[in-house]
């Protein structure tokens, strides 16, 4: 059995519903080596649906928010003037904390001249764990009505393994939550589909990864087999399409039943197993190429 270095590989896309989770879970199981899978799509975590064992362990996750000690507070308002996120309001005889707006920067506590602010934990979601065969899943799940997706993702992201391969299932988009999830990865797989929406959102994701200086390759899902708009874009930009997964109703139906549809297909499965050696070659290559050096 082959083992891989503790690389961190993010599975991302600009557009939602292109098959990130399907790819991440199928890849994790296809490799048949110990893998840690982090589900960082904390608003809608779905990777666990492929684990028949069900979620085993659940730990509340919190962020630090300010709490005012009214025995000490002089209502001077320094904290509220400092806070750029309007998370504190101070009146003549009262002070309020709006936890939803707090970015946990710690500034209010620093500036308070009366040491009247301390930080207390506030639960924003859960960390959940399940293992099956060689795959260990750690997922974040944001509590409903909470807006702190990125802080929760950063907490889950710290669970990347030091001694085995880590795959990171990222949220869609190209802004804070997606960046929190891909940041620190050695490589990113961008999953897309051959439609104008797929192409438009792929371009945004490519720009983002270039800003973050993370090397990446494309997985073309629901490929029609012919030369598509994604092929011509990748040719122009000199981006590798690492793998194409055919557009078959049979695959869509198997996915809808929660089956490991890619692993069921011998050809797709063997292509998934080829991905890791290809990625490792590309990362080595980028280590000697001056444009690709990671900071």
């Amino acid at each position: 059995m082959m083992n891989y270095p503790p690389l961190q590989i993010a599975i991302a896309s600009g557009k939602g519903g292109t098959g990130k989770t399907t790819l991440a879970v199928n890849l994790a199981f296809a490799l048949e080596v110990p893998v840690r899978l982090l589900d960082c799509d904390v608003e809608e975590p779905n990777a666990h649906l492929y684990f028949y064992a069900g979620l085993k362990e659940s730990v509340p996750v919190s962020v630090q928010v300010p709490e005012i000690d009214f025995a000490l507070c002089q209502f001077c308002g320094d904290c509220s003037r400092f806070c750029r996120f309007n998370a504190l309001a101070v009146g003549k005889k009262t002070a309020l904390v709006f936890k939803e707006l707090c970015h946990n920067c710690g500034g209010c506590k620093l500036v308070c001249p009366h040491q009247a602010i301390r930080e207390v934990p506030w639960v924003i979601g859960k960390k959940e764990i399940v293992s099956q065969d060689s795959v260990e899943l750690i997922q974040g799940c944001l509590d409903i009505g909470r807006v702190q997706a990125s802080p929760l993702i950063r907490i889950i992201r710290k669970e990347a393994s030091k001694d085995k391969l880590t795959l990171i299932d990222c949220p869609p988009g190209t802004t804070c939550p997606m960046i929190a999830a891909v940041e620190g990865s050695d490589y990113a797989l961008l999953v897309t589909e051959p439609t104008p929406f797929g192409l438009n959102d792929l371009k945004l994701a490519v720009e983002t990864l270039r800003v973050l200086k993370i090397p990446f390759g494309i997985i073309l899902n629901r490929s029609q087999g012919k030369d598509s708009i994604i092929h011509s874009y990748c040719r122009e930009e000199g981006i590798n399409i690492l793998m194409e997964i055919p557009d078959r109703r049979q695959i869509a139906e198997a996915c809808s039943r929660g089956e490991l549809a890619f692993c069921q297909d011998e050809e797709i499965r063997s292509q998934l197993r080829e991905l890791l050696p290809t990625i490792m070659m590309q990362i080595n290559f980028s280590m000697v190429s001056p444009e690709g050096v990671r900071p």
Partner: protein
Amino acid sequence: MNIKELVIISGKGGTGKTSLTAALAKLSGHCVLADCDVDAADLHLVTSPQREKEEPFMAGWEAVIDSQKCVGCGICQNLCRYGAVLNSTQTDTKSTVKFVIEKAFCEGCGVCVWGCPAEAIELKSKLSGQWFQSRTPYGPMIHARLGIASENSGKLVSQVRFLAKEIAQAEQYDLIITDGPPGIGCPVIASITGASHLLVVTEPTLSGAHDLERVLKLAAHFQLSVSVCINKWDLNPEQTGLIENQALNHKAKLAGRIPYDPVFSEAQVKGISVSEMDSIPVKEAVDHIWSHLKSYL
């Protein structure tokens, strides 16, 4: 005039929100469109908009370190909770290690500015994206693009909705159709608060069902009225039935079912909405959804 706002969301991404938004706009014939999926806006690809206006979106702050003044003490790096203060690769003649701000991680809190003994850091207001006003065959459209690696998507969503309402009032439109983002977090909450009615587009998969559950709970949290429609329903008729029951249990209305049909991608290629394509089953399904929604608007 009483302006109604229909917001289309999905929980799970890629279920067909944008395609359906464009088709409903076509059926309404007269509405303001708002694209609130500012992370990955696609509605402009299928509504043939003519751009009329383009404005910068300034939101939040970012710290900037003046390398001339930086004494290399590192206090800012210790204080920053976002890991946004990096060691600079440049040193001065005395080989002092200087610091720089990584824009992608800076949240603009100002803690580094407060802590810097050399007054070398200042906060600058940040260009976070752009918004656009365009004209489609059905009416005006407000859309936006958040800057690469930017934050404040919730604020940009609120801005798009505000502008859509403003133009609806000014030009006497009584309906706004809003294409929402995926998920249940900050930009989704910013998209749905105060909406007249929500349409949740889902698909008959385990993920679709799981995400629908969370999005319906979110809608209940904000006490919004909801209809659910199932795209690609025939991929798994059994799951479709389960999802419809699930929706009814949450007191959501059933807006209809759309069959699995390649016209969804073909319409994108042509840059038009699915209701302009010649697939009778899809057309009938979308007509049915529209007549259902009209009774709530």
